[in-house]
């Protein structure tokens, strides 16, 4: 008798290689420029009658209490760490009077303006033209409080009648260096 043996050999030989992962990337970049902005950029101080009443030696002269201590609040922000703030106080001038004030009279009122933001102060005296020195206000968002002090007339004379007006200019300057991404 013959017997045959069939050997079924199943050969399973497949070491399928693990699927090799590959990752692609997309780089994104952008910038935010150094910037400052006033969200409340303008306020007004109207003090009415500027001169002292009554009789005697000081009547008709500047009432310094009218301007000294007056304050208004602007609101702004700067997003850079090296932002600066400067103030320019422009004197109150009589807008109705033309020419040089006669002897014994004044048509100009000088004062000091101080701006406070982020616990930093910058100030300017209106007797000297142009803005005062810049202060490093840095990164901040919030109030810029402008206060007046030290008001006086050039000769201490009588104030000529009329309307007087001046301005305090507060300038916020962002850092001027730029942050450009590297070229690809």
């Amino acid at each position, binding site marked *: 008798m013959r017997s045959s043996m069939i050997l079924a050999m199943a050969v399973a030989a497949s070491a399928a290689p693990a699927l090799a992962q590959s990752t692609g990337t997309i*780089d994104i970049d952008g*910038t935010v420029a150094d910037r400052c902005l006033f969200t409340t*950029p303008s306020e007004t101080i109207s003090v009415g*009658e500027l001169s002292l009443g009554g009789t005697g030696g000081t009547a008709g002269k500047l009432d310094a209490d009218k301007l000294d201590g007056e304050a*208004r609040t602007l609101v702004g922000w700067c997003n850079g760490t090296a932002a600066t703030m400067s103030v320019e106080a422009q004197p109150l001038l009589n807008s109705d009077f033309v020419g040089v004030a006669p002897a014994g009279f004044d048509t100009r009122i000088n004062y000091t303006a101080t701006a406070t933001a982020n616990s930093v102060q910058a100030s300017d005296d209106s007797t000297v033209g142009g803005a005062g020195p810049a202060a490093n206000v840095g990164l901040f968002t919030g109030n810029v409080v402008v206060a*007046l002090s030290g008001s006086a007339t050039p000769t201490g004379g009588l104030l000529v009648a009329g309307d*007087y007006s001046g301005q*305090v200019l507060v300038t916020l*300057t962002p850092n001027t260096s730029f942050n450009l991404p590297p*070229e690809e």
Partner: protein
Amino acid sequence: MKKIVMAALATTAAFAATPASAQSVTGVVNVSGTVGDKCIVTNTGAPTGGAAFGGTVSLGSLDDSTTGLLKASGDLATAFSSAGAGQLTYRVVCTTAKTDVTVDTDELVNSAVTADPGYANTVHYDAHVALSMVGGDETVSNDSNDTPTNQVIAKRMATGATNIAVSADDFHTPNATDVMLAGTYTGKITITLAPAN
């Protein structure tokens, strides 16, 4: 044999964002006030009643003791001025470019008596108000016979020591031959300064 070709595509997107140029921003606080039109008395003299400034002049005896007529005008003018600077000079300053001045002279009158013909109970005179002003002095005068004098002078009151001085002259009775009636004679000069534009 399988070949697995893998192509790895790497894409880098470079965003070259140009930063906005760093601009300064300026906030503004406007400040305004006014100085009203006004005249202020700083040297009052020796005013009486509710007057802001002024004085009192006592002329003494008005008549000539030998003729009974009014004394010579020059003598009365001197008697007027002898009241002195304390009564006759003042300082008023106004804040406007022009000054509105009114002078109203009231004759000296003895109101207790009525003048019959040949007699007088009234003495007329001219008052002169000298004003020191910026750009040149001015004088505003008024005769007690006339209505008040009003002038708007296009100058400011000067800011020196005193800038108003009052004098009087041309004292006369209605008729030169009138005999003065006895009694007390009173008159006044009213000066009004107002600011003007």
